[in-house]
């Protein structure tokens, strides 16, 4: 490669990297002020791009003015978003994970709104200047690149000065280090948080204006830079200066990797570097470093236990019989379509139970669960297609393979909090990329088709109704097994690790060992679910095991209720059934779905399982009052 090309590549990398830095800074700021990963940050980019487009085409403003307008408008939007959607959740001291899911809801809804307003097709930006090229030392450089680099660096410099020189900036930094002490000195936390969201959104919006002329304005614009911007922030240890360099380095490495090494493995290289930086070179620490699931009301309350012990002896068997009747007659009553989506929900439910063990019980996190689901699916499909093994053999093998894969990557669990989130994300992406690139094994993007239906003896589980029973029975077995596991000594040790790792270690629990085992079991469940999925849909391709699916699984866990096994199942039912039943809303479907997710997080922070616990608590309160046990304690029931 000649020097000119090299310089051009580096310059291109810097331009993209500059955008990663700006968006990543938004991540870093919100994370330091509220410890939240703001998924809606990507949509700020999209919003900025469209607002900029309107400013150019309607108001005919010059590019610099457009940039400023987009900064201000998206900044205001960020403040409003914080005030009306996130603050109610923050105020309830809900677990961070709830906030994270709420921002996910915002992101889904905003994308759908953008489609309604601006349409589905990408829109090009008008040319910014008449002569697109500038000659710099004999190299033709696009004027646009210079604009992006200039404005990008200017905003970063401005931000840096803001944090170093102004009183507001300094108090912001103080609060991000220790907000309790800062509050004593008169720093208002609320203003600070609102300010943070304003600045982050403005940075995203500015980045949007900068990249839209390069990449067009489209509703999915933010999505494409989201993951890499987050990686940039993580590489920089979520500091202001660190993130700036993180983004620039990431942009250059990415471009050079594609140009010099291999375009196919470009993203594998990038995520590999990210993981090894996180794992080996430095394990960044964020000031408070609390676990992402902290403060979740997880342990089944005493009241529910009380309710259980005082319920009439006939209640349990009757409920059991009713449930069995419901289970048997459900597929007969509802149509094939309902049974089909029920099956999908049940299959995902099995994977979600595994994730519940990892997230809800162990307090760990995984954004890569879909990869293990995929490993299970591919293992079972390949074994049955090439070696004609029966389903009852390939399914446990699939679970085993996913478990082994989980064990191999388990060292990531040494990461904490958000770094664990980004670590597992990178892991999941690498898994996906390998599925797409190992063509000799997985046939790559073509996927595998003609996966046989499961067969036991002469009976083939081909119909949706038959599969319903296969899937639900498997779910039942997994549920029973996990239930036993979590109430065993092992399960209680897990909860101990989650609640206070240090105390658990002092009590003789090998925390890391414990986490690894939970992770392996959780991944095994995902593998099992993957096998069921592959033989059900009979066609799989890597697209089904992408990052988005992992996020969906986390949503299921949170909506169902952290640390509740039945909650996991209910969560998967809701997340699968809800969008299907909202289909009649057409374009507004995802707006409503996103808003529902946000309101779930605002009004039901404990998830749906919390809702189910309430009646039990009320009855328990009644019993308590009547029996006059624990005098003076009743009425303190949870909200």
């Amino acid at each position, binding site marked *: *490669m000649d020097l000119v*090309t090299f310089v*051009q590549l580096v310059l*291109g*990398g810097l331009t*993209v990297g500059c955008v990663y830095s700006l968006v990543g800074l938004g991540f870093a700021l919100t994370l330091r002020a509220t410890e939240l990963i703001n998924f809606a940050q990507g949509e700020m980019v999209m919003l900025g791009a469209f607002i900029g487009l309107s400013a150019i085409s309607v108001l005919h403003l010059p590019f610099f003015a457009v940039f400023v307008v987009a900064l201000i408008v998206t900044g205001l939007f960020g403040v409003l978003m914080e005030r009306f959607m996130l603050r109610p959740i923050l105020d309830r001291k809900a677990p961070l994970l709830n906030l994270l899911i709420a921002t996910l809801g915002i992101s889904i809804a905003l*994308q*759908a709104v953008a*489609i309604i307003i601006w349409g*589905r*097709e*990408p829109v*090009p930006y008008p040319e910014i200047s008449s002569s697109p090229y500038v000659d710099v030392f004999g190299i*033709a450089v*696009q004027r646009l690149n210079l604009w992006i680099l200039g404005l990008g660096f200017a905003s970063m410099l401005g931000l840096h000065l803001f944090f170093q020189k102004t009183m507001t900036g300094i108090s912001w930094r103080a609060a991000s280090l220790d907000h309790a002490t800062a509050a004593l000195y008169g720093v208002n936390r609320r203003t600070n948080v609102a300010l943070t969201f304003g600045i982050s959104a403005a940075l995203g919006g500015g980045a949007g204006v900068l990249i839209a002329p*390069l990449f*067009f304005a*489209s509703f*999915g614009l933010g999505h*494409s830079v989201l993951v890499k911007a987050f990686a940039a922030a993580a590489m920089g240890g979520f500091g202001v200066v660190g993130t700036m360099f993180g983004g620039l380095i990431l942009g250059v490495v*990415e*471009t*050079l*990797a*594609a*140009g*010099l090494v291999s*375009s*196919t493995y*470009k*993203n594998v290289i990038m995520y590999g570097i990210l993981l090894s930086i996180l794992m080996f070179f430095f394990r960044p620490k964020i000031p408070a470093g609390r676990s992402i699931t902290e403060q979740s009301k997880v342990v089944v309350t005493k009241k529910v236990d009380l309710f259980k012990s005082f319920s009439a002896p006939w209640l349990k068997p009757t409920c059991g019989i009713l449930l069995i009747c419901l289970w048997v007659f459900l597929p007969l009553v509802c*149509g*094939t*379509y309902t049974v*089909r*989506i029920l099956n999908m929900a049940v299959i995902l439910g099995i994977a979600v139970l595994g994730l519940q063990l990892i997230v809800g019980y162990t307090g760990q996190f995984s954004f890569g669960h879909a990869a293990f689901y995929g490993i299970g699916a591919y293992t079972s499909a390949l074994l049955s297609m090439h070696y004609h093994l029966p389903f009852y053999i390939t399914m446990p093998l699939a679970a085993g393979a996913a478990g082994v894969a989980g064990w191999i990557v388990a060292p990531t669990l040494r990461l904490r909090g958000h770094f664990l989130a980004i670590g597992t994300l990178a892991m999941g992406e690498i898994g996906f*990329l390998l599925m*797409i*690139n190992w063509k000799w094994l997985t046939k790559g*993007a*073509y*996927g595998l088709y*003609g996966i046989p239906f499961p067969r036991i003896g002469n009976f083939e589980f081909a119909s*949706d109704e038959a599969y319903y029973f296969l899937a639900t029975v498997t779910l039942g077995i997994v549920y029973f097994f996990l239930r036993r596991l979590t109430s065993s000594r092992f399960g209680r040790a897990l909860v101990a690790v989650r609640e206070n790792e240090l105390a658990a270690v002092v009590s003789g629990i090998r925390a890391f060992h414990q986490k690894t085992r939970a992770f392996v079991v959780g991944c095994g469940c995902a593998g099992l679910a993957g096998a069921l999925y592959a033989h059900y*849909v*009979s*066609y799989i*391709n890597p*697209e*089904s095991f992408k990052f988005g699916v992992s996020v969906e699984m986390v949503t299921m866990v949170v909506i169902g209720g952290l640390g509740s096994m039945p909650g996991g199942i209910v969560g998967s039912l809701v997340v699968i059934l809800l969008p*299907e*039943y*909202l*289909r009649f809303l*057409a*374009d507004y*479907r*995802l707006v409503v779905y996103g808003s529902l997710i946000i309101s779930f997080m605002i*009004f039901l922070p404990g998830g749906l399982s919390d*809702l189910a616990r309430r009646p039990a608590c009320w009855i328990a309160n009644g019993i308590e009052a009547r029996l006059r046990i624990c005098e003076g304690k009743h009425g303190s029931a949870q909200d």
Partner: protein
Amino acid sequence: MKRNVILLLGMVTLVTLSMMQAAAALDVIKVGVVGPLTGQFASGGQSQLYGAEMKAKELNASGGKYKIELLVEDDASNCDQSVNATVKVITQSKVVAVLGAVNSPCALAMVPITKRYKVPQFTFGVGTAITKQGSEWVFRVAVAAPSQTRTLAEYATKKLGHKKIAVLYSNDEYGASMAEGFKKALENMGLQPAAYESYPVEDKDFSGQLTKVKSSGATVLYSTGSYAASALIAKQAKQFGLGLQLLGDTGNAHPKFIELGGEAVEGAVIVEPFTPADPDPKIQEFVKKFRGQYNRDPDGWVAEMYDTVGIIYDAVTNSGKMNPQAIRDHAASFKPGNGYKGILGEWYFDKEGNANFSLYKVQIKGGKKVILER
């Protein structure tokens, strides 16, 4: 408490809504349309819907005995959702034919379902495997990947006289099958692609791949994937100082490709089964009508779905039978010289259910498509 009541009410409403089903009239031809209306490939789904919708409106306004009702379902390019939606329109709405999906993998995933329920499926997915599943219920209403790429490769080497051709493809099913078909076509002529590079679907910066194209000394670049990505590739190649002859398949035939690419796509050669540039008055009238309704040029996908709805309508009116079997048999009965005459020309399907049209080779000149040959 109040909160719970609201939630409960919400759920009750949902359940009732889902139970409500429109009463079916006897002379309404129900056609399911499954494709992405959200997500990355939403514009493809939009073309599919526009084509079907336009023909349905025309037929319904023509005052015949039968009316067409489209049942549109969004799959967000997610194959699980495509399959769910297919099951929904077939078992709940009792459609007599299904259009879709837009993405080949999803169309492929739908094949076992339409086969099981014996409902004809019409898709413009180009993946070869779709019609190789042994299902007599699936029809490909587009030119399959191998024939498109063969035409393109032959035109580039024989007519344009290029020997060094670089291939840049998206690493999804569409890009991979096109690129592979093109490579095979080159190999049949004793050539090898000068560079053969892929890119992740979400990517927007292709400078790395273009560096390899540059160092390969290629004179032609065939980029395949979404039209937005191809337009970006064209722009970035120009920015890189690469003066390449661009080639494109039907994926780039969308009018947005020209709008997004601007000057960078000048001179690009594209193959497509339908082109708004054809001076044929029938086609010009179609183009004018489409422009009036949707304010853009129609692309091949629009035309394909427009004709498909025509075929379904004809099947029902000719046989007088409103059932999936009649529609399938009608479509399968077309023979060369005795097929359906649509906007794309004469329709007939081969044994596997593939339609085939001769492709236009068009070139983009002055922001417009100009026909080179057909």
